[in-house]
């Protein structure tokens, strides 16, 4: 009898070490210099925990465990090798997988324990299954929208909020009933089905520009459901990991919401959809100044300080490597080049940083909004590549604008502004950008990658005489 007891204790100790490693892992992630060590710590913690679990004496059959682990690895490897531009949808997909795992385990635990489930257990279990299920479909929807399998435009209809809230209320009601009467196994499938439906309904009205917030929110739900599962199966390690994931998702959602000057509820329930039609229709054919790649290159070459503002458009056009060439060409001429990154630029938190890092741009040149805004008045040229709403001065001066109050990058304070854009179509929020009609703004119409390439050719060509 002593041997299993010793193993049991050993397993607990190993779990504790793993939990510590997980926390260290995140701590090291806070600085780029130690970040990779953080990943390593996380991996060790994970291997230890899984190894310890396999020693657990209650395990009688290894066949399906091995099949599961092998299959998961086979699916996981390609998911770890996706293009950097596809990282947002990959992340959404992994939220879906994580939530699926939690929901399935929760379901199994319920059927194993029913009808004798204590109230506390049933409450946490319901939370686990509800959050897991809605995160699963919600994340799949988000991934679909990001991958452009599903339409990115928000889909809204009358009474949508009412429908959503009622659906959520029904699932909570079912959960409460099950807590009081855990023996009602017939009701349990509803606890899965209704949140699955809610996950879909929740994401339908959300547009591309809100994706960073939504991904963070789903991240948080996935973490919370995992923490709930930790309570159900009494695993402190899982509670720790889930809590870490949940709080990181929560913090990111708060950061994202702040960066858009909107509350959570606003993002979830007040799609930009309603304002779109009126705002886009009002302005037609106002004069803008345009310039060619040659002119743009001349201005950039003569500048002392240039700030590049990348946005989702740069990601779509895969222009980050050309931007890197531009950075090199300008730096070689002694131009000071920096990058201004708005917190919600792109489709997930930190999206632009990853793309620019992929193109080998040193991370100390990537500055966030608060750090760069003071620099714009001393900037000769602000070059906006595929960013729109985050540069719209209407957020500062037009109280009627739907984005009024959202913190923006003050590109309009630079001496000259250049905007590379495919055409005059409004951004995802569907709002016209005052910036484009300023006298100091030059519009460079074209594909971001091709246009930046042209500018680079002009700059380096001139260099050879």
């Amino acid at each position: 009898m002593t041997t299993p007891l010793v193993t049991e204790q050993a397993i607990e100790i190993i779990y504790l070490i793993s939990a510590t490693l997980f926390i260290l892992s995140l701590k090291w992630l806070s600085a780029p210099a130690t970040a990779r060590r953080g990943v390593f710590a996380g991996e060790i913690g994970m291997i230890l925990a899984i190894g310890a679990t396999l020693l657990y004496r209650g395990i009688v059959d290894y066949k399906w465990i091995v099949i599961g682990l092998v299959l998961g690895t086979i699916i996981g490897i390609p998911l770890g090798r996706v293009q950097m531009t596809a990282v947002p949808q990959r992340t959404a997909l992994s939220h879906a997988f994580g939530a699926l795992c939690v929901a399935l385990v929760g379901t199994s635990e319920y059927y194993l324990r029913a009808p004798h489930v204590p109230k506390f257990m049933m409450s946490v279990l319901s939370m686990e299954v509800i959050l897991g299920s809605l995160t699963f479909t919600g994340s799949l929807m988000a991934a679909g929208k990001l991958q452009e399998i599903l339409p990115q435009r928000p889909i809204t209809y009358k009474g949508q909020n009412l429908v959503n809230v009622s659906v959520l209320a029904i699932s909570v009601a079912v959960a409460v009933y099950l807590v009081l009467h855990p023996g009602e196994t017939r009701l349990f499938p509803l606890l899965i089905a209704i949140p699955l439906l809610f996950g879909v309904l929740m994401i339908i009205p959300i547009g591309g520009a809100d994706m960073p917030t939504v991904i963070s929110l789903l991240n948080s739900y996935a973490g919370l459901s995992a923490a709930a599962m930790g309570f159900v199966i009494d695993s402190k390690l899982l509670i720790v990991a889930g809590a870490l994931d949940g709080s990181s998702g929560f913090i990111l959602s708060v950061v994202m919401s702040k960066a858009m000057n909107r509350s959570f509820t606003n993002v979830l329930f007040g799609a930009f959809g309603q304002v779109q039609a009126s705002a886009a229709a009002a302005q037609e054919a106002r004069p803008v100044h345009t310039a060619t790649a040659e002119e743009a290159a001349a201005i950039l070459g003569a500048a002392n300080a240039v700030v590049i503002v990348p946005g989702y458009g740069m990601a779509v056009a895969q222009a980050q490597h050309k931007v890197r060439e531009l950075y090199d060409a300008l730096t070689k001429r002694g131009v000071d080049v920096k990058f201004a990154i708005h917190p919600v630029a792109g489709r997930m938190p930190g999206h632009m940083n990853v793309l620019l890092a992929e193109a080998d741009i040193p991370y100390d040149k990537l500055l966030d909004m608060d750090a760069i805004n003071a620099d714009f008045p001393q900037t000769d040229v602000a070059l906006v590549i595929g960013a729109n709403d985050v540069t719209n001065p209407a957020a500062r001066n037009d109280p009627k604008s739907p984005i009024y109050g959202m913190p923006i990058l003050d590109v309009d304070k630079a001496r000259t502004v250049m905007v590379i854009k495919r055409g005059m179509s409004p951004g995802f929020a569907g709002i016209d950008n005052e910036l484009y009609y300023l006298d100091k703004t030059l519009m460079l119409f074209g594909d971001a990658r091709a246009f930046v390439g042209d500018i680079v050719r002009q700059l380096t060509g001139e260099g050879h005489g």
Partner: protein
Amino acid sequence: MLAAFVGFEIIRRVSPLLHTPLMSLTNALDAIAVVGAIILVGEAKSGLTTALGTIAIVAATSNLVGGFMITDRMLKMFKASSKPKKP
């Protein structure tokens, strides 16, 4: 609760520069849920739990492997400008 608090403090200090890797790393760590699924499947209490549990293991493992791989790949790309970084 303590973990949530400690986590909160640590994560607040992560620079916006690394928000994407942060998310993919916490995702990978979340895959520790695989532990629960392993026990569930291993105890082999019913056909239902084995089936659901195996799918759960597949889902979590793919997150685990993919999550760590992509986080490391991203972090490898972050380099400081020309000056060698401190060890």
